[in-house]
């Protein structure tokens, strides 16, 4: 049971008449609060597990850590997708030691218990000594994760058997995922390769950062200068200067319900679907513009613009980032303590994409994103500077008031692209859940 004293603390302070929204810094640095988050948030919410394209064949599996729990995500020999805890029912050993692969069954290296790809116990590697019907109730099978559901091929688990459906949980984030997936004329897939790294900061600092339009210029000026030089080398005007003038006037950030939120903005990085930039050369222009024309035909001008031109950064509460900007990336943030996290990120792309657009997409991705990118690494530095500052000064509040407007639920409000309403949507949900209040609608 969560410590009542922590549940009763007012860690999020909202003063709508005065336009102030503050978060207590203990939310980023307290071991006690982190323990409560594990119980009241990570054991209750839907957490991302993997994408359907990662398990194409029967017997394919992935071993992943989700919300601190070691899981195996398997396409069973019967073709069903299942998620089980990666621990032998006998004495606890991890039964799957590889990160991914294809298996006929899973056998525990310790005493040789064997499970099939649905987790059913096949053998205890013993001729005698156990009651005949010891597994009659299935309790010695690999334990299934209580809930496994998907939306458009994105699979999530919940450790709460009574959780509302994934569909209800995702609320308006579903519509946003649709926009991202609709860039593909067919399916999307996870590309080979991943970025796996750590950050010495509270996981919520990366959530805040992942859709923060306000930090773009000071944090990423060196990336914008790189873009500008690249553009000018190809004889184009400074698209970046234009963008910076326009940034706050176009786009928006908005809450999508249940703590999810998204930023829509315009940054001329170029996008394989479907925004050509001069630095990519004239040969590929036609292909990108043809894709764009097909999108307009299929979805109409407005939605095509949202798919093709708008940079989309979304955080699905509490720890999943799906961005479609310089690349189409999914980033899972796994907290490992109050001031540390692991990050795993993958690249998504339309399955039917041409080889040269695929190459361009990947090149664009690593130019900014990941531990050696011209952008992400500077974000990481900012988060570690924040953690350092939060940990080493006796101050109480972080200020998240930019663009506060109106009354109502911060979880569904809209603000400018360089405001902080998206973070307020996140924190309002966090606050409800940490106080044990009713935080979900739908079933």
């Amino acid at each position, binding site marked *: 049971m969560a410590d009542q004293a922590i549940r009763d603390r007012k860690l999020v302070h909202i003063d709508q008449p005065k336009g102030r929204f503050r978060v207590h810094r203990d939310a980023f640095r307290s071991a006690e609060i982190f323990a409560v988050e594990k119980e009241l948030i990570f054991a209750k919410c839907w957490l991302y597990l993997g994408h359907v394209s990662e398990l194409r064949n029967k017997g394919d599996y992935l071993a992943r850590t989700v919300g601190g729990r070691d899981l195996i995500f398997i396409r069973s020999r019967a073709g069903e997708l299942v998620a089980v805890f990666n621990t032998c029912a006998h004495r606890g050993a991890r039964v799957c030691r590889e990160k991914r692969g294809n298996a006929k069954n899973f056998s525990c290296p310790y005493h040789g218990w064997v499970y099939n790809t649905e987790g059913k116990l096949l053998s205890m590697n013993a001729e005698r000594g156990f009651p005949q019907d010891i597994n009659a109730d299935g309790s010695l099978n690999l334990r299934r994760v209580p809930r496994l559901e998907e939306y458009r091929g994105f699979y999530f688990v919940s450790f709460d058997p009574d959780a509302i459906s994934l569909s209800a949980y995702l609320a308006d984030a579903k519509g946003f995922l649709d926009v991202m997936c609709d860039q593909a004329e067919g399916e999307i897939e996870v590309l080979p390769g991943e970025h796996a790294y750590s950050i010495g900061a509270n996981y919520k600092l990366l959530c805040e950062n992942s859709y923060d339009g306000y930090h773009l210029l000071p944090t990423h000026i060196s990336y914008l200068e790189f873009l500008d030089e690249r553009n000018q080398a190809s004889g184009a005007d400074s698209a970046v200067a234009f963008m910076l003038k326009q940034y706050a006037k176009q786009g928006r950030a908005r809450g999508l319900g249940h703590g999810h939120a998204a930023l829509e903005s315009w940054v001329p990085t170029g996008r394989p679907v479907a925004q050509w930039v001069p630095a990519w050369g004239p040969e590929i222009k036609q292909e990108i513009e043809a894709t764009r024309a097909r999108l307009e035909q299929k979805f109409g001008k407005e939605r095509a613009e949202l798919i093709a031109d708008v940079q989309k950064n979304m955080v699905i509460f509490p720890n999943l980032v799906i961005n479609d900007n310089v690349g189409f990336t999914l980033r899972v943030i796994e907290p490992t303590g109050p001031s540390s996290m692991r990050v795993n990120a993958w690249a998504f792309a339309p399955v039917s994409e041409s080889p040269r657009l695929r190459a361009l997409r990947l090149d664009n991705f690593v130019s900014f994103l990941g531990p050696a990118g011209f952008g992400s690494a*500077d974000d990481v530095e900012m988060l570690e500077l924040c953690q350092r500052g939060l940990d080493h000064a006796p101050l109480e509040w972080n200020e998240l008031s930019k663009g506060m407007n109106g009354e109502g639920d911060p979880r569904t409000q809209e603000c400018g692209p360089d405001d902080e309403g998206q973070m307020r949507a996140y924190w309002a949900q966090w606050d409800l859940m940490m106080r044990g209040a009713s935080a979900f609608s739908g079933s």
Partner: protein
Amino acid sequence: MSELLQSRAAIEEFLYREAELLDDWRLPEWAELFTDDARYDIASLDSEDPAKADPATSLFVLADDKTRIVSRAKRLMKKTAHAEYPHSKTRHITGNVRLGEIQGNERAVRANFVVYRTKGDKTVQYMGEAHYLLVANDGAIRIRRKRCNLDLNTLADQGRLTIIL
């Protein structure tokens, strides 16, 4: 065929000089070691065969053509390259240099490396095998390809890869 590429001493001296430029943060000079058609790549750390992985079909940690090699060097010298401000202290150790066949004016060379990076009070290390394709041009050795295959599964200890290996 170039005499330079026949000489182990000249090749090793070249690799040591590259390491020195990096440790001295003379990065624009380092970028000049590369040919105009050069690449500097680091495959995903979970790649099953990082020597053969292709940045056009799989996600790399770093995949630079010459333009971006130059941009990387230039950017890292700025105070606004926040991840490397203040600059890390680095020490590149290069060893186990193995020379491949000479083909025309090119020679494949492999070397083991360890790079120590200290920022603030934290020191981390990056270790692996570097695959070079060296070329002799106008009496000097240049790098046409450099691919660093790290003996790491994740950057859990290192966090980031903002220095040049």
